[in-house]
Every structure is written in C-alpha cells, then in structure tokens.
C-alpha cells in the first residue's frame, strides 16, 4: 500500500522551462515532506523540505508547495537545466510517531533537454 505516490514515472522538459514534479500522500499524520534527487550509481541527495505548518518553501530555483487538504505536494524547478536531469523522490514522515522513518515514493525521472 503506497502511502506516498508519484504517479508520473517520467517527465521531459526543455531547458529554461519550468519542471513540475507531483507527489500525493495518503497518511494524514505526515507532517514533514522532503524531495531527494538521485543520479545513476549515486545515493539520493537531499534537495528541499517543507513542514506541514507551511504551504511553500523556496530555495533558489527550487520551490516546494504543499496542499494539505488535497494531500498533495509539488516541486517546481525554474528555470530547468540539463544538470537537473535525475530521478526525483518525494518522501514524507510523521514526526509524532516516535520512529521518524522516511516513506518514499517510487520517483519521477526528469529529463531536461538542451
């Protein structure tokens, strides 16, 4: 039972345009959300996070939006660059649970074309 869902396995955008990666979750107890980026043959690297007390967090070209009522978050990358091509994983955790394990989605492979 997937608690964190990334329904698009892949996304292709042109360099300079906006990339929007989506993530849905089912567990209403999740209160902290993260995006990780993964290049082939490397471990995932942390990109950006958001707490459930916010609805937006911005870091340079990366912005994460959280819609708690819809249990939906999205990652916006603008402008997209070829170096952003990677697999992006959405993750969530319940900080009140006592075990703060991160639950990951299956990932979305982003390709930014020059």
């Amino acid at each position, binding site marked *: 039972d997937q608690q964190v869902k990334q329904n698009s396995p892949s996304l292709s955008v042109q360099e300079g345009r906006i990339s929007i990666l989506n993530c849905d979750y089912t567990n209403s107890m999740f209160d902290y959300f993260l995006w990780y980026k993964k290049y082939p043959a490397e*471990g*995932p690297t*942390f990109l950006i996070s958001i707490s459930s007390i916010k609805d937006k967090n911005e870091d340079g070209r990366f912005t994460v939006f959280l819609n708690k009522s819809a249990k939906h978050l999205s990652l916006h990358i603008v402008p997209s660059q070829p170096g952003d091509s990677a697999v992006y*994983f959405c993750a969530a*955790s319940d900080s009140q649970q006592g075990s*703060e394990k*991160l639950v*990951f989605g299956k990932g979305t492979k982003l390709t930014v074309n020059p």
Partner: protein
Amino acid sequence: GAGVSQSPSNKVTEKGKDVELRCDPISGHTALYWYRQSLGQGLEFLIYFQGNSAPDKSGLPSDRFSAERTGGSVSTLTIQRTQQEDSAVYLCASSVERSTEAFFGQGTRLTVV
C-alpha cells in the same frame, strides 16, 4: 568521515548464500536507516536505528533479513539464504537526532545469481 560510506559497492552472490553489507554513518549522526531499491521501484524502508532505542524493524521483508548497529556507529545488514528477489541496491542513510534530513551512501548493488 565526510559522508556515509557503504561497502562493498557491488556484490554478486549465489542463491542460498549469506551476505553482509556494511554502513559507516556520518560521525555524530545518531539515526541510521537501511533502504533498498529494486529495479523500477522506489526506496523501500527496511530498518531504522535511533540512538539507544529499540530499532524499528517493521520494514524487514522476512526473517532472513537482520541488522545490527554496534556502538551506535557502524551497521551491518545481513541477508541469510539469499534469493533472487533480494537483488537490489541497498542504501544506508544517517541523520542527526530527530532530524529527518537523511544523508545517503552510494549503496551496495546486490545481485543474486
């Protein structure tokens, strides 16, 4: 160390053999996670260690899987009597206490033939 270190980076083993995968977390990180990524799948949680608390083993897929963390630092994931479906990349991550920004190692690619 500078980052999370995992060894070996690649392991090919025969079905039925036991394997041990090692993880050296970032110094000072009290939380340690094991995940695995099978082909075409997301990151599947296996086990989580936090300080001296009892580990969360809820993600271990069978009793062939076990993990320990000695001295609050190095962790070993052991898979007994490996099966072909155990083939995956096994990822270790660590974080500071009560932080959910986990730092990952490069993973161990396990192939069971």
